[in-house]
């Protein structure tokens, strides 16, 4: 047997093993983000599949009393119009500056993609939906946590109003800074996943994502994107490249 044959047969074995293991662990490969052959992303996907498979499906994150509310740091983008920000996007920053100067009166949330009725909502229109207020724990990947009160419209209500198609699997969030990330429909329809416009009984402050941010209570803080302007529903996973977590080396699913 030549060296080439050895390598080929080894590769064949490895391919067989990994695809076999992949099928075993993944189940349906198209319902999770691509791993690009990166072993860390494979482990992320394994955790994702395991938690989706094993954890009770509609468990609510713990909600606290008002007296439990703590101080909370504001990190990441704290002003999308600030050109020195880590995730500054020139076009988004300029648009944000313009809308903020008008008190967000002209801001609208666009909803498109795999929905029957694409369209957009003003802040007042979102506030006319039945609101949900929840006092929850924000857990940062860095290691710290904080308790705050969030008020907003359940994402589920907005998705139902837009008529989500049965093929839809992912909800993508577009922001005014250079961030774009998604959650699966399981998290999107969760009762505590809200589009928050209020925090601690007041309007959502700029540093925490005004005028609208999403709260994803069963994942780490970086999935609760701030400064939203568009929600796009997709049937398949969409990797936004350098705007998203995967191409920056971060896990897409962070329920752990």
């Amino acid at each position, binding site marked *: 047997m030549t060296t080439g044959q050895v390598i080929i047969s080894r590769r064949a074995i490895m391919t067989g093993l990994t695809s076999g293991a992949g099928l075993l662990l993944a189940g349906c490969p198209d319902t999770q983000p691509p791993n690009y052959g990166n*072993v*860390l*992303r*494979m*482990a*992320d996907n*394994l*955790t994702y599949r395991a*938690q989706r498979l094993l*954890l*009770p499906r509609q*468990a*609510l*994150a*713990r909600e*606290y009393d008002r007296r*439990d*509310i*703590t*101080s*909370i*740091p*504001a*990190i990441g983008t*704290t002003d999308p119009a600030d050109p020195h920000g880590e995730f500054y996007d020139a076009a988004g920053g300029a648009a944000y500056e313009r809308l903020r100067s008008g008190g967000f009166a002209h801001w609208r949330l666009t909803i498109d993609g795999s929905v029957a009725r694409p369209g957009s909502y003003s802040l007042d229109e979102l506030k006319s939906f039945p609101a949900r207020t929840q006092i929850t*724990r924000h*857990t*940062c*990947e*860095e*290691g*710290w*946590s*904080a*308790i*705050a009160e969030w008020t907003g419209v359940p994402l589920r209500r907005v998705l139902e109003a837009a008529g989500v198609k049965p093929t839809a699997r992912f909800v993508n969030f577009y922001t005014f800074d250079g961030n774009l990330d998604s959650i699966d429909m399981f998290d999107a329809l969760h009762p505590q996943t809200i589009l928050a416009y209020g925090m*601690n*009984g*007041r309007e959502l*402050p700029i*540093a*925490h994502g005004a005028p609208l941010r999403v709260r994803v*209570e*069963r*994942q*780490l803080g970086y999935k609760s994107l701030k400064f939203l302007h568009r929600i796009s529903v997709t049937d398949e996973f969409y990797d936004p490249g350098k705007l998203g977590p995967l191409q*920056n*080396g*971060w*896990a897409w699913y*962070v*329920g*752990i």
Partner: protein
Amino acid sequence: MSSQSRTPTTAGAGTGHARWIRVTHWILAASVLTLGISGFTILMAHPRLYWGAVGNDLTPALIELPVSRNYRHGGWEVSTASFPDGGRAVSSIRTYDILNENSWARSLHFLAAWFVVVTGAIYLLAGIFSGHLRRDLLPRRGELTARAMWNDLTAHKRPAPGGPPYGLLQKGSYCAVVFLGVPLMVLTGWAMSPAMNAAYPFLSGIFGGTQSARTIHFCVFVALILFFVAHLVMVGLSGFKRQMRAMTLGGHT
């Protein structure tokens, strides 16, 4: 392994390590080392520990560890009250560019954690059904006397065979790692997961909150390092080459 090779032997004549023990030992050793390195990297991003449900830079810390440039970094804007009526809760914008290698460190940590959970489960099951845990690891009845412990302590500098029978303190430290240390790491680790917390709130409850669980996670990490150091010292003192041969190639020593 035959039952004959497992009968109690005279002191100094070891029975060696079974193959499944050698394999799981090294997989677990590599995984735990990876967990230690990645875990410390994660700690460096936020080297503050708390007690209770939550804690952050704007709340008091239980311990602050000088392990990265993030230690007591002063980069915060003037804080604003979280409520119109004042109160204690505030919010502040961070202006300091912290050291944060959590992107790879977190994913690597959980990759290694999967290896520990799966290999650890195999080890426990094999250990139960082969009798290894009961026969070799758990101290025997009547073995736990002060005199026996003193004898064991004074016998420590003598060369020892690779594998069981183990000394009394050796059994104790292995039991502490297998039945206390590693399970505590897994449980406190789970207690930090937001999805696990939503599904099983008692997990963080038994440790007094998610931040308490994080602090315990760190304390057990320190305890496991102490075990690791003692383990290496003892392997060295009792004949490094022989011990390594027994744990890799196997066979009687």
